[in-house]
């Protein structure tokens, strides 16, 4: 599903955020990316959604080299990816319902079907009662969960989540992670960036460890302790 091949990313005027990264994630696999603050976790996920382009190396997604996708093709790629952003990225002047509905509107799903799916997604993150509220009237953790609902509502083939539990209490964090793990059953590949080591250990999934942009460890699910 995902292949990184000697990928490096240097931001303009910045140091190298990722250096010669190579790894693969199989279809339907769930993996964690971890590392210290500034290690390059978010950068790695951004490369997958073409929010940033690598300065060196190749990324292949679902058999398709990302370098071949021009600006006009990006929306189509992003519609196949569900993404949870570290800073939520909600539309502040639209209701929770409208925010979660967004990928379905863009995907051209019929209204009745949309309503059904949005409510199913909101229920999964425990926010069914908040459907009519504006994001500003939610606590930060609630906003984060709206972002999660939006990422899963269109049943994407690839789900990437950047620190999806940074503002959630431990119990809720585990529930969300188990929700993600459940997507495996329908063949969705899941990649989660997180610094929550206790949670990662508990989930017992594959872990990719970054340190200053380098891959320093790639621990298979069975080896996590």
């Amino acid at each position, binding site marked *: 599903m995902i292949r990184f091949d000697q990928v490096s990313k240097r931001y303009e005027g910045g140091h190298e955020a990722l250096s010669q990264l190579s790894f693969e994630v199989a279809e339907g696999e769930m993996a964690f990316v971890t590392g210290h603050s500034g290690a390059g976790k978010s950068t790695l996920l951004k490369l997958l959604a073409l929010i940033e382009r690598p300065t060196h190396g190749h990324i292949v997604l679902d058999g398709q080299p990302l370098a071949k996708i021009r600006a006009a093709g990006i929306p189509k790629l992003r519609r196949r990816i569900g993404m949870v952003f570290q800073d939520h990225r909600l539309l502040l002047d639209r209701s929770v319902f409208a925010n979660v509905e967004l990928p379905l509107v863009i995907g051209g799903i019929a209204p009745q079907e949309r309503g059904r799916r949005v409510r199913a997604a909101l229920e999964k993150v425990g926010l069914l009662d908040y459907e009519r509220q504006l994001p500003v009237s939610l606590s930060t953790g609630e906003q984060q969960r709206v972002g999660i609902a939006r990422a899963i509502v269109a049943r994407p083939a690839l789900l990437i989540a950047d620190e999806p539990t940074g503002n959630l209490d431990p119990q809720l964090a585990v529930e969300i992670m188990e929700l993600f793990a459940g997507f495996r059953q*329908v063949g969705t590949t899941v990649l989660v960036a997180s610094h929550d080591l206790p949670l990662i250990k508990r989930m017992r999934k594959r872990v990719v460890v970054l340190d200053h942009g380098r891959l320093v460890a790639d621990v298979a699910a069975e080896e996590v302790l």
Partner: protein
Amino acid sequence: MNASVETPAGEAPEAERSRHSRARPVASWREHHGWSAAASLRRLAARPFGTLLTVAVMGLALALPLTFYLLLGNVQHLGDALGRNPAIGVFLQPGQPGATAQLLAKQIGERPDVATVTLKTPQQGMDELSKMQGFSDALRSLDDNPLPYVLVVQPKDGLDATAVGHLTDDLRALHGVDMVQDSGSWRQRLDALLGVGDRAVLILAGLLALAALLVVGNTVRVDIASRAEEIGVLMLVGASRAFVRRPYLYAGIWYGLFSGVLAVLLALLVEWSLAGPVAQLSQAYGGTLRVGGLPPWLLLAVPLAAAALGWLGARLVSAWQLRKAA
């Protein structure tokens, strides 16, 4: 919270998504157009003060050329009426018989640049002269009428000074004509004045057209700039550029439409407030002056053209702004 295993239906997610998205592209496209039009309208309504300010500025910028159109039309009207070329006096040589005079009058009357020709017999001239006090006694004492036939030639309305000059020259060259009397210098002055007016109106119209364009562009630019974050989010969840841009294009159309309506209302207000002085002027002309108002088709065309202008401005600026977005 129901955090776990009511996972999505058993089918592969990709297959299901495409089943929906490909089945109804036209319906969803049409739906999004409707939504964009309504949503952009709702957004304008959500900040009435800002919308009002924008529409007011745009409306004024559009109203000004319209008002100019109105004023210029009326002033040209007035100018034409005021500047109606004065009659030219054609004095025939003394002793020319009445028949020659009548022939000449007919001949001149057929020219395309002449409106009317009036023939004044020597007797009529004498009568006029006698009516002027101070002459009556002196003239009455003449036994023979020394006055010639005179043709009073009224040039067509709207002839400029050069054309009148040609006419005068032609008249002077006619056989039997002694002298031609016209008031060329007055005509020259008015034309020069109208020249300044024309140039001034042209300059002002240019400035105003530029202002209207700038206002439309600036409003939409600011609109988009203030929603940079929203645009970013939309692009991140896979919206195409056309999708993102649609509400702004509709906003441009709404701004334009409302501004156009406001401009028409303002122009009508000006027309109405001009009615007083124009009536007064008309009276000074003995009621002969038609008052030119805005033609009805313009009242409809201006809002539509403004809407098109708004759409165009939004399109240009949004293309430019969105190129900067991811």
